[in-house]
């Protein structure tokens, strides 16, 4: 198997080198124009801006994650046109008789610096680029939408997109194309965020003030991403205004935020710090009861970033995130958990066609529980920690040809649980052995325009996951008893899983406004979140693949038809997908997942499959903008020992999922927004009878997931009132009502003996939120 893969890899490398040289066959000299695209007022780099040479309409490039672009073309005079949503176009006249560096500064509304030749054209990247299942969110759209408690939230907004399902009220986990909540790779400036939620899932860890760009890849992700099966949510932080100092923030009912940014050295470096805290616990202090008074319920987070230009070819960045949730009841219970990430990056421009980024990343998620009840005093600590090195290179061969390649090495350590207890405690102190793994990957991908209408992106990611000692590793029998064990010392490889992940996508333009696309993607996942409850639990444990747990594998094929109308003012896309999932994890009856040295003995393994149709229609211009998204899907699982080894619906299987979003700019002062969400219910296991044991009513279950929760629908409205605005100060008031008609959407349905009539049993529904109004005051100076 290894030899064949190496052979394939070599074949791939040879073929792309041959294709690469195709353009150099012409006798005419070629030169490159490159540079960085920034916002003129703040100096922020712009990601995904479109650069074209007017005279060569097929020569276009998009600026990369650092705002860098590069176009290689035959020598000549050209008009370079740069465009980006929300900005005026910019045109530059260049004489391409040698390699040129042309930095671009785009401005919004009003006077453009350079002569404008072409009227603002909206881009048709959704039609022309081969990448499928990609959704980009603009921060302005996120800011205008009404959300729960008035907190602008990326994670809540992506749940309004096709193929993305929400975890339900009070749950910031999300499902992409039927995949589980742990199958989404959530990156903040390249660092993995293991638990992107605050306060048991009511809020996410992303402070929109600090965010520049959000891109969601639904399964068909390019080769530079890997590690999770279903999606990549790539979130990039703002760099900070490198021209002037600014402060901005907001005061809301539940939380407040403050954002400070400014130059370190004008035009050459800047910093940004954003912080946020809730005060949901203040009302607790008003209580007369001492336990309630001493209880805690809050979270805070801080995003910080600094960047500095070392020279014409080098730029360094340092970014970090620190967040914590604290919940506590008097002195009896306390839990705190949080993520810490830090990223150091160095951009180096080798030459006009070769861009490199080197990253050193640290990421840690930990939780800590303390219990002081009678003589049950214990502390439980657990964490997962990564040290990560990445090298990404982008080689812009010419405007039809771009190669990305690189390596990615992560050192994972998980500490599944350390329990500390005093001598008189009811519990023994335990230290479950740490798990150590080394995940390395090498990838190469090639963006190629084969003909004027046919664009392809193909690539390969080779992934090696090595489980390392020190430690003792057990194998188990069907009943969960350890039958064998082997001990390894530090640095020894216990087991290595090697996987090849081919990626392929192609787009064929039918005309300038429509195209069809096709893709195939294989992804693997070696970190698994063990969670046996209906809601995301901060104490869920991450475990790496091992001698008992194989890597999860997903194969996805998708096809789509895309059409833009009225000069790209309207976007329409339709995609169908089919996914095959292997080595999926589920739990034995009565599984003990907490503080269990032999937690792997509690797992069962099986298969999954998911397929669906996604329709998306977006209006991008005018007073009224917004979108409609509809997903029709099915997600199933098949496990030995469950439902007689037949396909059954997964918990997250939801047949219909509809979101309608509208933003209306009424006038200079008022912007109104609304969103409507409807989805049919999750598959659930409910009783089909009852019996009695020892005086207790017990419920009789037949098949798993044979029932459906009732459907969910909700309408939110919001309004933003522009406040005082001067050159130095800007403010607005934001009002919103979550769940306008107060529908009692079921959060859970449970069963019990009727307390009012003990001769009967009843079903009880809990709904979390009815009308939730909120007011936020936002300011900027």
């Amino acid at each position, binding site marked *: 198997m290894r030899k064949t893969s190496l052979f394939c890899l070599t074949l791939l490398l040879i073929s792309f080198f041959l294709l690469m040289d195709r353009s150099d066959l012409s006798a005419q000299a070629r030169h490159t124009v490159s540079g960085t695209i920034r916002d003129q007022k703040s100096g922020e780099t712009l990601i995904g801006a479109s650069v074209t040479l007017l005279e060569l309409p097929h020569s276009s490039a998009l600026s990369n994650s650092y705002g860098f672009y590069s176009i290689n073309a035959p020598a000549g005079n050209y008009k370079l046109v740069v465009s980006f949503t929300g900005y005026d176009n910019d045109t530059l006249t260049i004489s391409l008789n040698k390699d040129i560096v042309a930095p671009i500064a785009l401005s919004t509304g009003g006077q453009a610096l350079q002569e404008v030749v072409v009227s603002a054209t909206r881009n048709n990247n959704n039609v022309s680029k081969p990448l499928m299942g990609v959704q980009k969110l603009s921060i302005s759209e996120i800011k205008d939408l009404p959300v729960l408690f008035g907190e602008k939230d990326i994670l809540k907004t992506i749940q309004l997109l096709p193929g993305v399902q929400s975890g339900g009220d009070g749950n910031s986990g999300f499902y992409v194309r039927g995949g589980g909540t742990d199958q989404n790779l959530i990156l903040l400036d390249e660092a993995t965020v293991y638990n992107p939620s605050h306060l048991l899932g009511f809020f996410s860890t992303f402070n929109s003030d600090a965010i520049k760009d959000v891109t969601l890849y639904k399964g068909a992700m390019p080769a530079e991403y890997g590690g999770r099966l279903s999606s990549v949510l790539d979130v990039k932080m703002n760099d900070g205004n490198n021209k002037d100092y600014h402060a901005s923030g907001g005061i809301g009912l539940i939380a407040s935020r403050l954002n400070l940014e400014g130059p370190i050295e004008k035009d050459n470096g800047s910093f940004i710090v954003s912080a946020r805290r809730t005060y*949901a616990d203040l009302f*607790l202090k008003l209580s007369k*009861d001492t*336990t309630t008074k001493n*209880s805690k319920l809050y979270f805070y987070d801080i995003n910080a970033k600094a960047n500095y230009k070392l020279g014409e070819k080098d730029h360094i960045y340092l970014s970090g995130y620190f967040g914590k949730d604290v*919940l506590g*009841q008097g002195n009896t*219970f306390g839990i705190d958990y949080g993520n810490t990430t830090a990223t150091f990056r160095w951009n180096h421009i080798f030459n006009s066609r070769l861009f490199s980024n080197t990253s050193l990343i640290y990421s840690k998620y930990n939780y800590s529980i303390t*219990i002081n*009840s*009678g003589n*049950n005093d214990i502390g439980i600590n657990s964490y997962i920690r990564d040290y990560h090195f990445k090298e990404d290179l982008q080689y812009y061969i010419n405007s039809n040809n771009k190669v990305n390649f690189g390596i990615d090495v992560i050192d994972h350590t998980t500490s599944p649980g350390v329990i500390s207890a005093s001598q*008189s405690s*009811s*519990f*023994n102190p335990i230290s479950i052995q740490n798990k150590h793994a080394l995940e390395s990957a090498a990838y190469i991908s090639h963006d190629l325009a084969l003909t004027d209408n046919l664009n392809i992106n193909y690539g390969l990611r080779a992934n090696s996951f090595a489980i390392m000692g020190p430690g003792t590793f057990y194998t188990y029998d069907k009943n969960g008893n350890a039958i064998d064990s082997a001990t390894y010392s530090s640095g020894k490889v216990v087991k290595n899983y090697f996987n090849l992940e081919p990626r392929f996508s192609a787009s064929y333009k039918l005309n300038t406004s429509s195209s069809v696309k096709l893709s195939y993607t294989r992804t693997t996942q070696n970190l698994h979140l063990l969670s*046996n*409850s*209906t*809601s995301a*639990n901060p104490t869920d444990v991450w475990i790496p693949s091992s001698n008992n747990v194989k890597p999860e594998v997903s194969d996805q094929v998708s096809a789509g038809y895309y059409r833009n109308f009225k000069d790209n003012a309207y976007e329409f896309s339709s995609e169908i997908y089919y996914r095959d999932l292997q080595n999926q994890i589920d*739990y034995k*009856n*009565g599984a003990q997942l*907490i*503080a269990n040295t032999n937690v792997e003995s509690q797992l069962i393994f099986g298969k999954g499959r998911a397929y669906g149709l996604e329709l998306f229609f977006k209006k991008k211009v005018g007073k009224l903008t917004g979108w409609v998204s509809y997903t029709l899907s099915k997600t199933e699982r098949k496990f030995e020992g469950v439902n007689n080894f037949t396909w059954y619906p997964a918990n997250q299987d939801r047949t219909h999922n509809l979101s309608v979003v509208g933003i209306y700019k009424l006038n200079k002062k008022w912007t109104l927004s609304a969103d409507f969400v409807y989805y049919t219910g999750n598959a659930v296991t*409910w*009783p*089909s*009878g*009852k*019996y*009695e*044991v020892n005086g*207790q*009513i*017990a*419920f*009789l*279950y*037949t098949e798993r997931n044979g029932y459906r929760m009732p459907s969910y629908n909700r309408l939110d409205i919001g309004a933003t009132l522009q406040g005082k605005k001067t050159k130095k100060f800007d403010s607005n008031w934001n009002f919103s009502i979550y769940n306008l008609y107060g529908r*009692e959407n079921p*959060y*859970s*349905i*449970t*069963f*019990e*003996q009727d*307390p009012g009539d003990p*001769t*009967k*049993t009843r*079903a*009880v*529904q*809990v*709904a979390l*939120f009815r009308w*939730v109004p909120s007011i936020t005051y936002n300011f900027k100076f």
Partner: protein
Amino acid sequence: MNQNTTIALLATATAAMLFYSCTKTVTLNLKTAASQIVIQGEVTNLAGPYTVTINQSTAFYADNTFPPISGAVVKISDDQGVTDSLTETSTGVYTTHTLQGSSGHTYTLSVFAQNTNYTASSTMPAQVPFDSVTFDHSADFGRKQIEAIVNFQDPPGVKNYYQFIEYINGVQLTKSGNIFVLDDRLSDGRYISRTLRNDSSRLAIGDLLEVKKYDIDENVYNYWYQLDQSSGSGGFNTSASPANPTSNISNGAYGYFSAHTVQSKKLTVY
């Protein structure tokens, strides 16, 4: 601990947000599975007779009266060759005659009913002395409550499983959320003080409380533990996939057969 405390903690934390939420009874379109046989039997170390109850399951929305199965042939034998043939003393209730249970012995139940043979076996563990019952006074966000605490020393080096039943003023606590089983996986050799947390019945000062402590075997512990996980008692942290607990009775019967020791403490709530 562990799952229970996490549930308790998360439940109380989210209780803070409950001022926005609501609970109501809903009527669901639930199917009715074919009637299933439910066998419950026990052998204890106290003087006999012991009983085996055989009845059936019903539809969810039917009354809580479970049709008894009459005319079954029920036998319990020990590991010393003694077999007791039980007599049906009232409909669906079968009683032993001379069998006397004691720790360290294995008892086998055999039931012939509805043309099927059902068997189960259970080994009675050694008795672990039950020291005392004390009380925990706490307040969950303003609601004062009193809960019983059971105190005893867990023997080190042995896997022990315990079950507790509470009777308030003579009435057994049987609502959901009142299954108390413990293992010593995380407490081996420790002095255990465990609060019997229940979310339905509240103890009041002056109530007459009886707490019974059973030492049960591993299969019976797993049965009750799984039953508790799937009891649907509480919206937060409900098991994602409730299922029927693994019974130690063969051929798909519901219920359990348990050989356990019994100790009882009676006191007034203070």
